[in-house]
């Protein structure tokens, strides 16, 4: 069986600065795969290239067996690949409900969208209570819930989450990470990018460690959690 997402020898540059250097990895259906690494390792660049916001210099990206590295970003969503971007990027002057409906922009099944809207409110009750409120007035954690709910509104087969725990309180982080597991159990495949290696690897079926644009280590989540190098570099242990 081929992987749901397959990245082969991907190279991405900003002008002359190469941010991602020939990396290869794959995500199998049903898995949570973590991509961890420090600031500037190329994690966000990788996700933005997969979702079509950036174009690779070379390499291949296959999603569900189809090459997508030349497909425009707005067409990738309807293929079943959603991207919840770094910094959440909710639409601040639109209401919660409008933000969620924008997540379903590529869909045309009005009745099913209503059902999924209710499902999003069930997943994050706070969003349902404040559906008319402008999203910009929300706290970081609430905005993260909204960003995830919005991404789920496109009914993705693969959900890419870019640093969902960034800047959150430990309690809120737990809520978000529990949701990641819940979404996996509902059948969504997840590519999780995190600086918080501990939280990300604990839930990951497989993990990749990215350092200055290269994959330096990979293995199952459990293997990486006990790996000496990972413990030193990312978990703050000697």
């Amino acid at each position, binding site marked *: 069986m081929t992987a749901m997402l397959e990245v082969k020898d991907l190279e991405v540059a900003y002008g002359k600065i190469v941010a991602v250097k020939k990396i290869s990895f794959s995500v199998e259906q049903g898995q949570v795969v973590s991509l961890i690494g420090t600031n500037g390792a190329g994690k966000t660049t990788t996700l933005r290239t997969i979702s*079509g*916001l950036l174009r690779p210099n070379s390499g291949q990206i296959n999603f569900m067996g189809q090459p997508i590295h030349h497909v425009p970003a*707005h067409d990738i969503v309807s293929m079943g690949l959603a991207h919840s971007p770094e910094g959440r*990027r909710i639409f601040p002057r639109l209401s919660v409900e409008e933000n969620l409906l*924008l997540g379903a*922009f590529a869909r045309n099944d009005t009745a099913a969208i209503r059902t999924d809207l209710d499902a999003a409110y069930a997943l994050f009750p706070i969003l349902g209570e404040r559906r008319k409120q402008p999203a*910009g007035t929300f706290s970081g954690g609430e905005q993260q819930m909204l960003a995830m709910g919005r991404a789920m509104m*496109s009914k993705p087969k693969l959900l890419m989450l870019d640093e969902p725990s960034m800047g959150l309180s430990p309690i809120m982080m737990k809520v978000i990470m529990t949701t990641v597991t819940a979404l996996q159990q509902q059948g969504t495949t997840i590519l999780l990018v995190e600086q918080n290696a501990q939280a990300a690897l604990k839930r990951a079926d497989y993990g990749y460690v990215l350092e200055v644009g290269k994959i330096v280590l990979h293995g199952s989540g459990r293997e990486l959690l006990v790996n000496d190098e990972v413990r030193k570099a990312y978990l703050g242990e000697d």
Partner: protein
Amino acid sequence: MDQFFQQLVNGLTLGSLYALIAVGYTVVYGIVQLINFAHGEVFMIGAFGALSTYLLFFDGQTGVWILPIMIVGAIIASVVTAVAMERVAYRPLRNAPRLAPLITAIGISVFLQELVRVFYDRIPFADFPSAKQRIPFPQLDGVSGKAVEVGDVTIQRSAIFTVAALVVCAILLWYFINRTKLGRGMLAVSQDPDTARLMGINVDRIIVVAFALGAVLAAVAGVSQGLQNNNIDFKMGFIAGLKAFTAAVLGGIGNIQGAVFGGLVLGVVESMATQYVPGQFGGGTWKDVWAFVLLILVLVFRPQGLLGARVVDRA
């Protein structure tokens, strides 16, 4: 007091015209941060589209039922012009420095004026008059002719049409932007284009919609102007466009309510200045000066505009 109300009526009429055009500047700016200085020409071509429709199909008739068909003709001419200029001139410059599209806009403006001036009477299979002079605009029953008197205040029928057109357009526009999926897509692109793409929104298509939307309102304004002035000419878009741009900045560029409000304020200020500024600085010849003085004052003391500009807000 009658003079005051008379000037208020004049001001609101003029202001409605500015508002209809100003929306086009502001909608496009809100989506692509581009000042489309050729928008005045979209307005002018709207007026010529209405005139052409009349001359081709209804020459000599005066029934008011012709008006909606003329408006449709105006809208087609304006939308085609606006969409074509976006496709041919602005889209290739999407990632260029901002000065490039600005200079291009001025170029398109001159190009379109000259196109109409030189070629309007040479369009094959149509017997159009030369646009080198002013061309009389068709006068229709009900919207032109004898003015309505309310007390001592005279209200031209074309003025009623203009104000009514603004009200109808504003309501339809509000509904489109806030209650339709495409409108929601426009709001998303204006707030965060990259994230909008992640939602599956085709940003290029939204930009075309923004140009087309502005063109529809400019076309209606073109018909209004024709009915009010009884004639149209190839350079009518220049000063009207400049005033409407002023109105858009006045209200807060990127803000649609602001454009409507700015247009009305500008129109009323001009009319009142004509009436109430005493001595040699009063009267019709100075009204443009007062309009731009108002702009300078707003830019100095409230640069975001009266209702606030589109602000870059990312929480």
